[in-house]
C-alpha cells in the first residue's frame, strides 16, 4: 500500500532536484567550472517567480497568469545573469586552478545572497496560486497535488528536450564538440566563447526554472540557495559531473533515499542524500555515469 505513494513522492522530489542538478552538470561539462553560485540562480528564480505571482494576484489579474510567470521568471534570470556573469567573472577564471574557480564562484554566491536580501527582503515569501488552482488527486489512498504530477511531467519533458537539443540541434552539436575537445573545436573554427555563454546561460535558466517551479509548493526564504546548492552538488557527483542522464538518474536515487528515510528512518532524513553519495563515490569515484580520465601532468 505504501509502495505507490513512495514512488510518487520520490518522483516529485526528483523532478525538482533534477532541474537544478542538470543545469550545474551542463555548465561543468562545457565550461569545466564547478559553479558554486548556481544555487543563487535557483533562489533568485524562486524569489522572482513568487514576487511576480503575488503581484499578479494582488493586482486582481487572472490566477492562470501565474503559470507563464514561472517560465518567464527563469528566462529573465538567464538573460539578466547568464551572459554578464560568464563574460566577466567566469571568463576570468578559465585556465586558472580549480581552487580559484571555486573561490570566485563562491564569492559571487555570497554577493548574490546579499543582493537577494536587499531586493526581496528577509521575510519568507509564499505564492501558492498555481498549486491551489490545479487541485488534488488521490493516488494509493493519499491526496496529492496535481501540481506535483505536473512537475514530474515537466522534468521528463525537460530531459527529453535537452537530449534532443544536444543530439540534433546545430548549437547542441557544437556544444558536444566543445565538450569532447575544446582545443580541436577551436581549431575547427567553432566560436567557443559563444558556446560558453550559451551553455552558462542555459545552466542559469535551468537553475532559475527549478526555483520558479518549486515556489508553488515551497516557501522562499534566505538560505534556500545554499541548501539547494549542496543537494545539487551531491546529485551531480553521484550521476557523474557533466552527465545529463546521470543527473536524472542520480536525482531519482537521491529522492528515493530521502523519501525512504522519511518513511522508514526519519532520523536519517537530512543525511540520506550524502550517505548515497558516499556509497556511490566509494565504488565509482567519478560517479555512476562519469568516465575515468587520465590526468595530464
Amino acid at each position, binding site marked *: *500500500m*505504501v509502495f505507490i*505513494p513512495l514512488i*510518487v*513522492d520520490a518522483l*516529485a*522530489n526528483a523532478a*525538482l532536484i533534477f532541474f537544478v542538478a542538470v543545469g550545474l552538470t551542463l555548465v561543468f561539462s562545457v565550461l569545466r567550472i564547478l559553479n558554486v553560485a548556481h544555487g543563487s540562480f535557483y533562489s533568485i528564480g524562486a524569489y522572482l517567480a513568487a514576487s511576480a505571482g503575488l503581484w499578479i494576484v494582488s493586482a486582481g489579474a487572472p490566477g492562470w497568469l501565474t503559470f507563464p510567470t514561472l517560465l518567464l521568471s527563469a528566462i529573465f534570470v538567464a538573460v539578466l545573469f547568464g551572459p554578464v556573469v560568464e563574460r566577466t567573472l567566469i571568463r576570468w577564471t578559465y585556465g586558472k586552478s580549480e581552487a580559484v574557480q571555486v573561490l570566485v564562484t563562491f564569492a559571487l554566491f555570497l554577493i548574490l545572497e546579499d543582493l537577494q*536580501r536587499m531586493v526581496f527582503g*528577509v*521575510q*519568507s515569501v*509564499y505564492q*501558492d496560486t498555481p*498549486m*491551489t488552482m490545479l487541485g*488534488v488527486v488521490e493516488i494509493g*489512498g*493519499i*491526496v*496529492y*497535488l496535481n501540481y*506535483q504530477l505536473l512537475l514530474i511531467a515537466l522534468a521528463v519533458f525537460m530531459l527529453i528536450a535537452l537530449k534532443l537539443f544536444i543530439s540534433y540541434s546545430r548549437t547542441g552539436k557544437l556544444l558536444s564538440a566543445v565538450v569532447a575537445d575544446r582545443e580541436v573545436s577551436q581549431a575547427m573554427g567553432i566560436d567557443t566563447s559563444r558556446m560558453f555563454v550559451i551553455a552558462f546561460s542555459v545552466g542559469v535558466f535551468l537553475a532559475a526554472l527549478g526555483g520558479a517551479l*518549486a515556489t508553488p*509548493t*515551497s*516557501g*522562499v*526564504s*534566505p*538560505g*534556500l540557495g545554499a*541548501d539547494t546548492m549542496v543537494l545539487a552538488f551531491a546529485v551531480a557527483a553521484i550521476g557523474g559531473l557533466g552527465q545529463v542522464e546521470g543527473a536524472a538518474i542520480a536525482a531519482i536515487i537521491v529522492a528515493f533515499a*530521502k*523519501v525512504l528515510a*522519511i*518513511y522508514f528512518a*526519519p*532520523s536519517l*532524513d*537530512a543525511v540520506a542524500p550524502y550517505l548515497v553519495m558516499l556509497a556511490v563515490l566509494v565504488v565509482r569515484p567519478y560517479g555512476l555515469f562519469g568516465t575515468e580520465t587520465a590526468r595530464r601532468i
Partner: protein
Amino acid sequence: MNHIFRTRTAASALALLAAVTSAQAQDKPESLDLGVFTFLSGPAAAYGMPGRQGAEIMIEKINADGGISGVPVTATYVDEAQGAEGVISEYRRMADGEADFMIAALSSGNCLALAPIADQLKMPTIGWNCDSHQLFKEPHDYYYRPNGNTIAEFMAYTLYFLEQNPDISRVAIINPDYSFGHDAAEIVKATLAAMKPDVEIVAELFPKLGSATYQTEISRLAATRPDVIFSNLWGGDLENFVRQAAPRGIFRQSQAVLALGETVLQRSDLPEGVVVGVLGDGWWRSPDAQSIGAASDFAAAYAAKFDEDPVFPAIKMANSLLVMKAGYEKAIADNDGAWPTEEQLIAALEGMTAQTLTGEMTFREDNDGVVDQVVGMTTIVEGIDYPVLGNMVRYDGATLLPPAGTDPIEWIGTLTPAFLSDLPKPGSYE
C-alpha cells in the same frame, strides 16, 4: 590665615557637594539601553519580527508613560539568524558598555549559550521566548525567564487533546529537527504514556529547521492515518507546513494540534477545529487579558503601526518588558528611590510577581517563570476575519511544572490519569 582656612574649607565643601551631586546624576542614567535579540531574517523571522514589533510598541508605551522612574528606554535589535557564535559575540560587545539590560533571546539554543555569559558578565538578562526546560538545569543568577517552559507547554497541549479526543489510539508527531522539537516529542510521549499508555506513536518526523517543502512528510502523515497529528513547527516553517498540508486534506483527516498555531492564524487558511496554542497565556483576546485591560490598547497600537493584529510572540515580548519594568520599579522602591545597581536589580527580580498584559507571572526560586497555559481550537467568530481561539482552557501554570530540581520527564511519569480528570476542561475558560 583664618580667612584663608575658611575659604579653603568652603571650597572643599563645595567640591565635595559637587562630587556627590555629580555621582548621583551619573547613577540615574540618561536612558536605559536594552539589547533585544530576536530573529529578524530567514524563516524564523515570521516569529521573530512580531517579537521585535511588540518590543517597539511596548517601549513606546513605557516611554510615553514617563519611562522607568523617568528614565526613557531605548533598544538595539540583534538578529539571531547570524548564528550562535555571532549572537554571543554581539552580546559580549553590547554588554561591554552599550547595553544596561538584555532581552535575549528567542532561540533556546542561544539562551542556553547566553545564560552562563550573563552570569559571567553580571548582565541582567531576560530570556523573552526561549522555552527549553534544559535552561535551568544549571543555576543562573543573572538570567530570568518570565515565560514558563516546555514541560508545562507541551503537557498542556497533550492533556487538552486527550480531553478533546478521549478515544484516540494513534498519534503522529512532526517537529523541527533540533532540541525544541525533540524535547517536545519526548514530553508529549511521556504525558501520553502516563495518561493513556495504550496510545501508539505511529510516526515521528523531524524535518530540518527551515525546510522549504514538507510534501513527503505530508504523504507520510496521511499514510499512517493518525487520529492526532501533533506539531511544534513554528515561524515560517509552520506557515509553510500549513499552506502545503491544508490542500492535501491533512486537517480534515486527523485532529491537528499546532502548539504555536496562533502565529499563523492571520496568514494562512486553517480550518475550524484545529487545536492551537500560544505557549503560555500570551493571547491578547483572552478573558484575563480583557479584564486586566491593557492588552487591547497594546493591540490597537500594534495594528495601527503594523497593519495586523499582534500574535503571541509580540505579547511574550511585551510581557517580558513589563516584567523588566516591574523589576526596576521594585528595585528602585527597595533602594529608597535611587537607581539600582545590577545586584540590587537582581535581588528585586528574585521571586518577584508581576502583572503582564495577559495574566500574572511569578519567578520561582530557580528564576523560571510560572505562567498559566491557554489552549484552544480555531473558531470563526463574527467581526474577526480570521479564526481565533475558542473552546479554551486555562491551566494553572504551577500545576504543570515539576518541582525545581527534579527530572521533569521522571516527574511526568509519576502522574496518573487522575491528574487529567482533576484539571479544568476544554471550554471552561470563557
